[in-house]
């Protein structure tokens, strides 16, 4: 989730009425934001933004715009929208796109913003917005990257620009923050941005560059601007903004957001046309996307009998530029005739996927607290899962025998369930991308959790009687040889004191089985981590393992650093219950 930092006075300068810090948390409900931090001394704030689908809100300008009701500031209309609409189709593009770029970075769009001033705060804000859009909305620049340039910097940018592919070794420019020219390949190899984003182009034989009509290289998108023509200063009054990516809608949306933000900061935005190959983008511009909200849907979502009368009015006040009542579908279209509202999405948003999205905006605009909760009326009978009922029967049985319950993590380290139990890891379910080796496999047994507890609890007065009931997992091989995941439902217990032996724990298992009307018939079998000859297992009539009891081998205790005898049992609950008639299984 994006976090936005800013200055309260800056935010207030974009609002009709200044807001106090105390009212921020509730006010931010309208932008799905949370007031996370405010420093009264510096008046700087942090806001956490929860709507990952509304990148227009990831800036101070965007938040202010939504709080204003979605429109421009007085005297600074979003005139570029009409300008884009009026643009003649035949006019030559300001950015010529080389069709070859389509294999590397297919879409580019850009605009000019002139006559404003950013200042320190505004420049920091612009860079922050650019970063959030590229990193989060552009997925670390893979889908979208943005570049901002001074139109009249060290060298004045001369149009038309060209977006083309260049030889990474023969082409040279001075990357941002450096002094001397280097080849594109050197930039990717050693510049911090090159190392971070170079992989987006490095597999291609030639790399994209933006250059002006005099051949001056502006940038190596999506990686880094040039120092000579791409370093923006707080005092710059005229800017060129571009975005490149794989998806024309994302490129357009990002530029629309930035154009709105810069207009709010006093700039005049002039749309530019980028054309060539498959790319034909005039940006910024309204994509004119509408969503049809069937009549009656707002009423259904609200739980009322008819659509609210202020539905259109409230949405218009929330930034929707146009809403009209409309009839959709005719007999010829083969679609039932339907009445409803045609809702035009604001140009700086692209999160309206379906009718419910517009209805939610109506609710947000009204304020959730303005609706009275109604209790659900339908009667239903509740029921706990059968598995939980069994677990609770086992838990109370252990409690009755004086055991203490443990709850352990399901992910664990591989040694804990292999070498430290004297077992191999053949049937372990492993994590492909563990965050830490301590949590790299799914536990196949609960014994390791009990032994780990024992190893940490030597100071706790003995005797120790511990148990755990819970989920585990292993790989099972089918007759076909294919290996499938198998969820396990296990119960295990451990007793530790100077005389802890097999007979005590065997008695516990017997008492536990009796709770399910099962009889205990143990076979001697040697199984790690138990002492050979002091371990028994219970099998079903079909020979499936159900339970093991035994004394833990001193070598195992030693591996866990346990200096007290221990005996343990483990039961497969599912196999136990599959035993059926209650007459016992081993005959």
């Amino acid at each position, binding site marked *: 989730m994006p976090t936005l930092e800013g200055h309260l006075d800056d935010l207030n300068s974009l609002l009709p009425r200044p807001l106090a810090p105390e009212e921020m948390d509730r006010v931010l*409900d*309208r932008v*799905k934001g*949370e007031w996370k931090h405010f420093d009264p001394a510096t008046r700087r704030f942090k806001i956490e933004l929860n*709507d*990952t*689908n*509304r990148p227009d809100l990831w800036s101070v300008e965007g938040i202010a715009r939504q709080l204003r009701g979605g429109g421009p500031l007085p005297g600074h209309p979003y005139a570029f929208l009409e300008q884009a609409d009026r643009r003649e189709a035949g006019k030559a593009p300001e950015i010529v796109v080389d069709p070859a770029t389509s294999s590397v970075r297919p879409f580019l769009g850009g605009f000019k913003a002139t006559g404003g001033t950013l200042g320190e705060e505004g420049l920091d804000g612009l860079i922050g917005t650019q970063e959030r859009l590229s990193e989060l909305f552009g*997925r670390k620049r893979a*889908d979208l990257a943005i570049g901002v340039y001074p139109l009249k910097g060290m060298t004045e940018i001369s149009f038309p620009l060209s977006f083309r592919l260049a030889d990474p070794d023969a082409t040279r420019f001075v990357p941002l923050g450096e002094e001397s020219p280097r080849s594109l390949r050197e930039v990717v190899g050693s510049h911090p941005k090159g190392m971070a984003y170079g992989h987006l182009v490095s597999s291609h034989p030639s790399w994209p560059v933006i250059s002006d009509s005099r051949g001056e290289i502006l940038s190596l998108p999506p990686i880094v601007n040039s120092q000579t023509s791409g370093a923006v200063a707080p005092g710059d009054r005229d800017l060129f903004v571009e975005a490149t990516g794989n998806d024309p809608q994302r490129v357009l949306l990002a530029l629309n957001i930035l154009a709105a933000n810069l207009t709010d900061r006093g700039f005049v935005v002039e749309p530019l046309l980028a054309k060539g190959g498959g790319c034909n983008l005039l940006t910024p511009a309204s994509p004119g996307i509408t*969503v049809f909200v069937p009549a009656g849907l707002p009423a259904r979502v*609200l*739980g009322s009998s008819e659509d609210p009368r202020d539905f259109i009015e409230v949405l218009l006040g929330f930034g929707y530029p146009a809403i009209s009542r409309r009839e959709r579908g005719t007999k010829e279209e083969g679609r039932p005739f339907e009445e409803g509202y045609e809702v035009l999405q604001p140009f700086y948003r692209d999160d309206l*996927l379906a*009718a*419910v999205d517009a*209805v*939610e905006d109506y*609710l*947000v605009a009204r304020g*959730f607290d303005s*609706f009275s*909760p*109604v*209790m*659900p009326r*339908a009667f*239903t*009978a*509740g*029921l*706990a899962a059968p598995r939980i009922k069994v677990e609770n029967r086992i838990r109370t049985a252990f*409690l*009755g025998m*004086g055991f203490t*319950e*443990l709850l*352990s*993590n*399901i992910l664990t380290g591989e040694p804990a369930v292999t070498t430290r139990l004297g077992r191999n890891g053949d049937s372990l379910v*492993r*994590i492909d*991308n*563990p*965050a830490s080796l301590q949590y790299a496999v*799914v536990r196949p047994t609960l014994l390791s*959790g009990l032994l780990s*507890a*024992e*190893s*940490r*609890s030597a100071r*706790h007065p003995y005797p120790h*009687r511990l148990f755990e009931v819970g*989920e585990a*997992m292993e*790989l099972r091989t089918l007759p076909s040889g294919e*290996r*499938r995941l198998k*969820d396990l439902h296990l119960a295990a217990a451990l007793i530790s004191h100077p005389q802890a032996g097999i007979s005590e724990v065997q008695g516990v298992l017997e008492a536990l089985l009796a709770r399910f009307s099962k009889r205990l018939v143990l076979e001697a079998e040697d199984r790690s981590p138990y002492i050979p000859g002091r371990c028994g297992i219970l099998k079903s009539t079909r020979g499936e393992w159900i339970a093991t009891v035994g004394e833990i081998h001193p070598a195992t205790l030693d591996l866990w650093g346990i200096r007290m005898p221990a005996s343990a049992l483990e039961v497969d609950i599912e196999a136990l219950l599959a035993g059926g008639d209650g007459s016992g299984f081993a005959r």
Partner: protein
Amino acid sequence: MSQPLHPVERALLRPFLTREDPGAFLSSEEVGPLSGLSPAQVQMGLEMVKSRGFLEERLDREETLLKPTDQGLQALEEGLTEEIIMEALAGGPRPMSDLRALFPDPSVASKALGALKDAGSLKIVEGGQAVRSGDLPPGVILLRKLLKMSAEAPVVLESLPKEEQELLSQYQRRRGKEKGLIRLDVRSFRSYRLAADTGLSLADLDSGDELLGNVTPEMLQTRSWEGKTFRPFSVGADAPPPPQGSLHPYREFLEEVRGHLVRLGFTEMTGSLVEPEFWNMDALFIPQTHPARNIHDIYLISEPRTATDFPEWPMEAVARTHEGKEPPVSTRGWRQGFDPEQAKRLLMRSQGTALSSRTLSRSPSVPGKYFAIARCFRHDQVDATHAVDFFQAEGIVLEEDASFVTLLGLLALLAKEIAGVDQVHYKPAYFPFTEPSVELHAHHPELGWMELGGAGLFRPEVTRPLGVDVPVIAWGMGIDRMAMFRLGLSDIRDLFTGDLSVLSGMVRAEEKSWSRSPQPSSPADSPR
């Protein structure tokens, strides 16, 4: 005298009453042979008569016993850290990194190296090499001597020469928080004499033999108790605690939540720990490029990598919805390709909502309410606020007239029933699978405003492809935070601890929180 004396009290008091000088003190060691009582009986008897004010007590002296700890015994066998280092340097200079590698915990080595350097036993020369420049510090030599002596028989600290006592205390101080090699147990020696004005006389010691102690089967059979008096029991004295087990307080908390939900009419869902992305993500309309789906946020399974039961899934309907193709849903979708192979990838369940999407696809009851308390896994660095796996409570409600206002009603009900809070705030939220989406914030009397959970109405993009036509309310709650508060924990990892003392701390915190919460009495219990 208000109460007759217990036989142990009588035996204990006899030496005091029969002495020539009743005002002189007797040490606790002397009382044993004089009274004929065992040391344990002396201890018990002294407590009993003291509590009745018959004896006055004087502290004579204290002594400190040295005993090696487990680490001490190990060091005795394997060598002290300083000894191991000096031994390693016997053959000539060695790099510091080599020396650190001798120990599992490099910080132990660093401390010992520092101490040896300060004592002049070694110095660091060019190239980070350590070289011997003297003998083992006297403190280390003494420590070994004391470890050896105390391993054989307890050593009294005060009996050691002053220099040795000083050296040892320096050593203990320097070692600071690190686990010590030697444990110090303080033993006190006390004396007693008869208190003034007890009114006790030898006659009191001879009476009371006819009193009965505990009831025995024989007594009942022979009716020998008839006409006799039972010896009063000093009911104020401490009693031994019974051996007891306990259920895990967190698990008990989950049972409580489960109980609330069942009573509210919810049926429990369960499922596998491993889900394909299809049920965990795609069926919930989470775009395939969503950040929550990248490998830094989910745990993928090594083998098998993909699910095999996909022919049973409504894959096509879900894919069309993601791509924005009608039917089954009128939506613009995510306007990107849908990769069925990604949908088949197996991961550790990252949200309980995976169980809801499965339930929706299996012709659920309408009206119907379902819930799960599911173990979920998140790819995070484990710390005080992030556990590798944790429990999530969540549920769905299917109802013909389910709406935004019934969603709010349900949330208010859950907040009251599960968290016990009346004051709530509904905050607009964003989740890919619900619209409208709400975050439930509740005002906790002690913690202030806190986020309790997320909820919403499932998008038609979720319900329609799974074959559900009625509105569905979905909600989820972070119950671990509620549990941590109840159990007095500040570190989420403690919910899954194996440390029995932390666990018993949780049990006590739970008992405390129970006694703090108001215990409602039902109207039927009150007298009429």
